């Protein structure tokens, strides 16, 4: 860490010497151990030694950024020169603003030390357990890894964060097979602080494997109807949550004025049961994002509280451009407040609808309208899951959906980054052949 600290100081001194009005840098070193399974068998072990340097300078309110992965003084000198040249080629923008010091903080997060043998054993155990309990599942690819490192973030205004962090992560992609019949592929991901328990017990891995195994013989839905759709956590994020962030509440859509929520702060935008927050300091989070790219310390914040829009997701730059207020972080570690019904109870009230585990759709329009294929989905009839579906499309409009929430589950997927429930929405268009 001391070497990185010195390097960061040298970069800032070099930037000052070359004429920068403001400079900041992130200097990091990391090591990754990774095992790969392909087509159901071990295929590869990787060891990666990485470095990264990101330098941002301001000169006369013009900004330039350079990224390199060399630590040698000549490379640093050239990188600073390139960053300043990039800034000089731009035009002034008084909205660039960075944190004022003094701030000096040091953190250790997650699992900074790797137990490689244990990682291999847990990977092997997971593969064997799946083979035994879910014989119809073929593991198309599984990547298990431990990634850890040191980062020093330092600015010319006396802000310094030193972080040592690491985490284990497991990423599974699989499908169900029987003879020539197969399901859509599905992915499960989890980030862990330790390897104390078998990985199949973490997150929704076991539940998802069992669901996918039941999708081998899907039926095609006839016709088109409007009805309730239950979105599982990943489908919920894909359709609803990323659209809220990307199209309605973040820097880009607020600066360019395309957000349809730009004048809705303080207004009811969703059902009162819906609350959405970003909480890097929640105890479930494995590696916390401690500071923003502009050097401000992060904090948890609510985006939507009881259906009311109470904040945007704005950087200081975005806040200055739009006359808004910088948010507590830049949108990490998303959480949706759990409801009170189990998934089974949520489904039990539905006469005819579908449950969607994954969504394959076009980029939702700026208005929040979307359509796409309901992947890994099931038909719900008379309060029960009856059969798996294929080639079923759904379409709707996110702002309308948020006001037509039928129920939110008490079961939540906690994956080491955030926490997401199942949500049932009324009134989506569901079409089969």
């Amino acid at each position: 860490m001391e070497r990185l600290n010195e390097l960061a100081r040298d970069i800032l001194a070099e930037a000052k010497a070359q004429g920068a009005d403001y400079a900041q840098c992130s200097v990091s070193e990391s090591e990754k151990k990774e095992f790969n399974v392909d087509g159901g068998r071990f295929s590869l072990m990787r060891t990666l030694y990485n470095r990264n340097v990101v330098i941002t300078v301001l000169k006369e309110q013009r900004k330039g950024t350079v990224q390199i992965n060399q630590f040698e003084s000549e490379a640093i000198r050239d990188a600073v020169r390139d960053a300043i040249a990039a800034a000089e080629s731009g035009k002034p923008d008084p909205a660039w603003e960075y944190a004022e010091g003094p701030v000096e903080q040091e953190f250790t997060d997650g699992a900074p030390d790797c137990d490689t043998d244990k990682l291999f054993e847990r990977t092997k155990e997971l593969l064997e357990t799946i083979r035994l309990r879910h014989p119809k599942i073929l593991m198309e690819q599984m990547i298990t890894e431990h990634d850890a490192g040191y980062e020093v973030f330092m600015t010319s205004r006396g802000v310094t964060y030193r972080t040592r962090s690491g985490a284990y992560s497991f990423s599974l992609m699989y499908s169900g097979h029987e003879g020539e019949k197969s399901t859509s592929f599905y992915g499960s991901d989890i980030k862990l602080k330790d390897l104390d328990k078998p990985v199949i017990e973490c997150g929704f891995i076991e539940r998802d494997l069992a669901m996918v195994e039941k999708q081998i013989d899907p039926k095609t839905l006839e016709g088109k109807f409007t009805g309730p759709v239950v979105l599982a956590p990943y489908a919920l994020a894909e359709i609803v949550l990323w659209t809220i962030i990307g199209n309605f509440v973040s820097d880009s859509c607020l600066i360019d004025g395309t957000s349809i929520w730009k004048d809705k702060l303080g207004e009811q935008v969703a059902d009162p049961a819906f609350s959405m927050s970003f909480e890097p300091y929640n105890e479930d989070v494995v590696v916390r994002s401690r500071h923003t790219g502009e050097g401000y310390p992060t904090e948890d914040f609510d985006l939507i509280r009881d259906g009311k829009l109470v904040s945007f997701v704005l950087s200081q730059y975005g806040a200055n451009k739009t006359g808004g207020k910088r948010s507590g972080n830049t949108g990490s570690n998303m959480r949706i407040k759990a409801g009170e019904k189990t998934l089974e109870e949520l489904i039990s009230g539905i006469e005819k609808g579908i449950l969607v585990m994954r969504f394959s759709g076009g980029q939702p329009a700026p208005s929040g309208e979307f359509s796409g294929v309901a992947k890994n989905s099931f038909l719900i009839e008379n309060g029960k899951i009856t059969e798996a579906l294929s080639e079923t499309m759904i379409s709707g409009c996110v702002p309308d959906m948020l006001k037509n929430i039928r129920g939110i589950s008490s079961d939540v997927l906690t994956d080491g980054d955030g926490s997401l429930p199942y949500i049932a929405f009324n009134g989506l268009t569901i079409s089969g052949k």
Partner: protein
Amino acid sequence: MLQDILSAKKALFAADVHTELRGQKSRNRRVVLLNGDIIGNVRSDVSGISARVYRSGVYGFSSMAEYTSEAAETVLKAATENAAFMDRHAGIGKSPLPSLPAKKIPPKAELHDPEQKIYVDFAREVDAYIAEHYPKLASRRVVSTEDSMEKLLVVSDGADAHIIAPRSYLYVMMTAQTDAGAPVELFKAFGGRGTFDLNFADPSALYPEIDALYERLMQKREGIYADAGEKTVILGGMMTGMLSHEAVGHTVEADLVLGGSVAAHNLNKRVASDLVTLTDFAHTAFGETCPLPVYVDDEGTEATDAALIRDGILTGYMNSRESAQHFGMQPGGNARAWAFSDEPLIRMRNTAVHPGKDRLEDMIASIDDGYYLIDSGNGQADTTGEFMFGVTMGYEIRKGKLGRALLDTTISGVAFEMLKTVDMVSDKLEWSSSGFCGKKQPMPVGMGGPALRCKVKIGGR
């Protein structure tokens, strides 16, 4: 340019295994203008060395963020140890990979490094043109970008190579509002292989196409929702390219075949109408250089075309050396890596349906009630061949004539079923190359095709 410090390390390769040692420099330049403000102005230069060792059916890999002789030795040792660890704990005792003839392949492209000002000035000039001519736009975004890689590859057998692969683009995105206040947008990418200075000398050369983009946006602003359901459509060349890549290409990547894709059970069977022939071109197609030519891959295999569908019959897969051994096929140079710290994976290069004999006008005239779908924002497909593409620009066809523009929609289907409905193929090939294919790593790819008349499911409101 990378100096060769790797060839001398061949003496350190273990005798009983297959070894690849690769040095790589990757660079990215990116300037983003949002309504005239420069919100992104970034240069990135990343380099390092990796080694990969194949032993009895398993691989060991290691990389280091330094291009030095010491780093080469460190990663060789670590990759060899990782391969030994895997062999000890999970080895399957496979025989060595069939060897390839030794060869040296020189670079086939130039690599310049224009200063950042060139990217900024060009984007600003284009942005100023749009701002001046189309002041009613709700927002505009102009991005100038380049991503280029240079690789030095040394292998225990096969082709040693020096690879230079630059590409550069200018993206223009315009957003307008409907009378009801709903935003609609359109996007266009200009450029292709080659560094930015070679591709973008004169901003005014782009203005006719920017004007056309604005015209289409104005039509879309008054667009209608497509009727949901199965329809006869004409897919434009860009959409055919997306189909070639996403819905067919991925299912015939041999690693995904081994992972259970639909192609596993369809080799040598009919998967499309006999009007459909599909190839993953290495570097040259129909007498011209492909959008992103690949002459050798990162396993040292000299690149050749992969014939995937011929006259409607599935004829082959895309392979790495290992998968080619498994399937008893010839490797054709599809194993490519993105960064120095990435291992080669089976990737497409320039995947396209071959053009046919029909004229686009005749194809449109042949449809009584359908759609002409021109451009796509994104696409995804399943290993089952079930696909979904976003449609960002299209028109209705009524009684053989183009009608109103469409608002954003999606199409979906199952590739090997939908391709059997192709009954007209246009005589013009259209390529695109500005995106990234996402697998474990990103990868620049080219894709293309003619217009196809076929049946697909279209999403409505």
